[in-house]
């Protein structure tokens, strides 16, 4: 024991780190901040460490070359002892990290912790979030499979919409004219050197400020933040009702971080690594690319925006969003911290969370995408739809199937969801309306006018006319009936 102390003293006399570390560990924090609500920041930091360690371990094997990356991932998955587990840890670690960073941010927002004097801590936090998302995207690219390839295509298409310098932006992003070797190399450099370096430096600075400025006190309704008095009030609070940071507050962080790491390991062991999916061969076009979980919401937004709004949205919305986040502590740097007195903050947070979950949910099953094989691979029009049908109507059912209508329209629950399900279409559309819709399309449906012969149209529409409930007649044009009634007597 004595020898250890001597050894410690020998080092500390040279390093001179003992005093500042002790001071940092023992600084008083308000009692109430030793709460389970305050554990997400440290968990995010621990996850960052996990990502760095697992990332380095993967880099021992991974080949950042467009020709070999996919193969090296498969070697990791199938040939190296526990290579799959490390890939899974890194992949799930990434998911957990994005999730924990988002939760941490929501909590900081809700607790008003971004207010004076912690504005810069929040701003750095915004950049940390952006870098975490950047890591998630570049990481998806390094999993160099079909989804990564076409995901890059989506990225390049977005970059190309920048006015004037679009072409330049695409070349810079891809490292050349197409998605190829140069692209992977530069994403590797970003994922492994540039962003992690900045992430680590910013995260350390962020933690430094948290320790120096003190952990945000528990928000109390009516306790108003004022620039002039805050520091003194906080100081008094930590004196009167405080405890040493170590071990008083930190043991909960330790427990939670361990639990998160265990959760990552369990997910990795049970659910396994992500992909890699199909080979990154751009000439294999039988693919439906989809981004990773945290970008699904964007994928959904891009399908619902009207075409004319897309470019402005893509270019302006992110800038506005980031500007808003950065501006927040400067616009609302004083005042109430408690969520009991900040209804707008609660409303904002819940509506963002709600919109995000709905869009992500939609993104998981992409109702806007045609089902490319619904017409050929799925089941044909069920017998019950054609059992009592005339030959013409049966012919129509064949036209319906073979002209890919089902890629966008479901019948009997099978088919795409891009257009409405057509099981009951005859009860809401008249024959004329059906013909018009088929020939002219409209409202996101292509016009079939040039691709159906008149007899095919007749057959198809007579089949569509049968799609109504047995006890309900098909829709009919009331004015026609009226005209018929009016005309008939005059003829006699």
């Amino acid at each position, binding site marked *: 024991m004595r020898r250890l102390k001597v050894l410690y003293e020998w080092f500390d006399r040279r390093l001179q780190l003992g005093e500042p570390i002790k001071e940092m560990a023992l600084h008083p924090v308000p009692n109430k901040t030793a709460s389970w609500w305050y554990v997400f920041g440290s968990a995010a930091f621990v996850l960052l460490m996990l990502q760095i360690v697992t990332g380095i371990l993967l880099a021992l094997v991974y080949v950042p070359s467009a020709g070999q990356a996919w193969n090296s991932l498969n070697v990791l998955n199938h040939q190296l002892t526990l290579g799959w587990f490390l890939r899974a840890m890194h992949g799930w670690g990434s998911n957990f990290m994005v999730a924990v960073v988002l939760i941490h941010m929501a909590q900081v927002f809700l607790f008003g912790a971004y207010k004076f004097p912690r504005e810069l801590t929040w701003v750095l936090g915004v950049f940390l979030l952006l870098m975490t998302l950047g890591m998630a995207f570049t990481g998806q690219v390094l999993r160099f499979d079909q989804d990564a390839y076409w995901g890059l*295509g989506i990225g390049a298409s977005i970059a190309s919409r920048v006015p004037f310098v679009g072409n330049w932006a695409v*070349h810079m992003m891809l*490292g050349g004219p*197409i998605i190829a*070797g140069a692209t992977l190399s530069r994403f590797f450099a970003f994922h492994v050197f540039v962003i992690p370096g900045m992430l680590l430096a910013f995260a350390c600075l962020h933690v430094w400020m948290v320790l120096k400025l003190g952990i945000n006190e528990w928000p109390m309704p009516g306790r108003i933040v004022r620039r002039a008095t805050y520091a003194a009030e906080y100081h008094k609070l930590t004196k009167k009702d405080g405890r040493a940071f170590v071990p008083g507050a930190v043991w909960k962080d330790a427990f939670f971080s361990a639990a998160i790491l265990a959760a990552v390991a369990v997910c990795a062991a049970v659910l396994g690594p992500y992909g890699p999916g199909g080979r990154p061969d751009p000439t294999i076009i039988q693919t439906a690319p989809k981004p990773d979980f945290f970008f699904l919401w964007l994928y959904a937004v891009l399908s619902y925006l009207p*075409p004319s709004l897309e470019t402005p949205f893509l270019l302006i919305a992110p800038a506005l969003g980031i500007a808003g986040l950065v501006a927040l502590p400067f616009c609302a740097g004083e005042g109430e911290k408690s969520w009991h007195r900040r209804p707008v903050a609660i409303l904002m947070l819940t509506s963002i969370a709600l919109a995000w979950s709905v869009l992500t949910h939609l993104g998981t099953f992409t109702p806007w995408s*045609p089902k*490319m094989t619904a017409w050929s691979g799925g089941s044909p029009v069920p017998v019950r739809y054609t059992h009592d049908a005339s030959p013409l109507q049966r012919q129509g059912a064949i036209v319906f199937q073979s002209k*890919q209508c089902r890629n966008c329209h479901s019948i009997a629950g099978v088919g795409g969801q891009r257009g409405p399900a057509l099981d009951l279409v005859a009860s809401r559309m008249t024959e004329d309306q059906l013909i018009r819709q088929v020939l002219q399309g409209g409202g996101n449906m*292509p016009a079939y006018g040039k691709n159906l012969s008149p007899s095919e149209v007749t057959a198809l529409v007579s089949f569509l006319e049968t799609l109504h409930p047995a006890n309900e007649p098909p829709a009919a044009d009331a004015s026609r009936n009226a005209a018929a009634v009016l005309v008939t007597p005059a003829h006699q």
Partner: protein
Amino acid sequence: MSEEVLLEGHDEEETAPVDELAVSRRWLLLKIGAFFNAVVGVAVAVPVVKYLLSPAKPDGAYKSWVSLGSIDSFPVGETRLAKFTNPVGRAWDGETDRVACWVRRIAQEQFQVFAINCAHLGCPVRWFPQSGLFMCPCHGGAYYADGSRASGPPERGLFTYDTKIVDGDLQIDAGQMPTLSNTAQLVQIQNTPGGSPCAG
């Protein structure tokens, strides 16, 4: 390890003689040193920036004529998938230097070659000869046989390559991923839905 005393900066109590002139001379030297660094910094930054920007080239710099094979492999009146190797590439591109495109042979000597990339977000469109439509799996963009926009989120028709026929070979002017910023010409022939010529 016996007791040892290390030098500690703040123990040096002796103060340097205050010499206004000397101080300002030191500051001047530091300023010159900083300026010198700035000059060298700029001199070094120029090649670095040039190196970084080297992939960005003007529209067309990457393009050249590529053969898609004999025109006989494309039946008149049909649209077929063709594949070629990108003219600009590196040895380690692997399969990613391969590019697919849709070739539509309208008449004996008349071709239209469409990029595989949807004009919306670049996903690979698929051709359905039965309905004469290209459909995109990502967000459901659809195009008619002539490449004009049919429906969905794309703002324009499919991107096309310039074509020519040399000694019975179909050639296209290719080399870079077609995007909204480098392929400006619109394929849309008629604006009315259903009114476009679909020979497919």
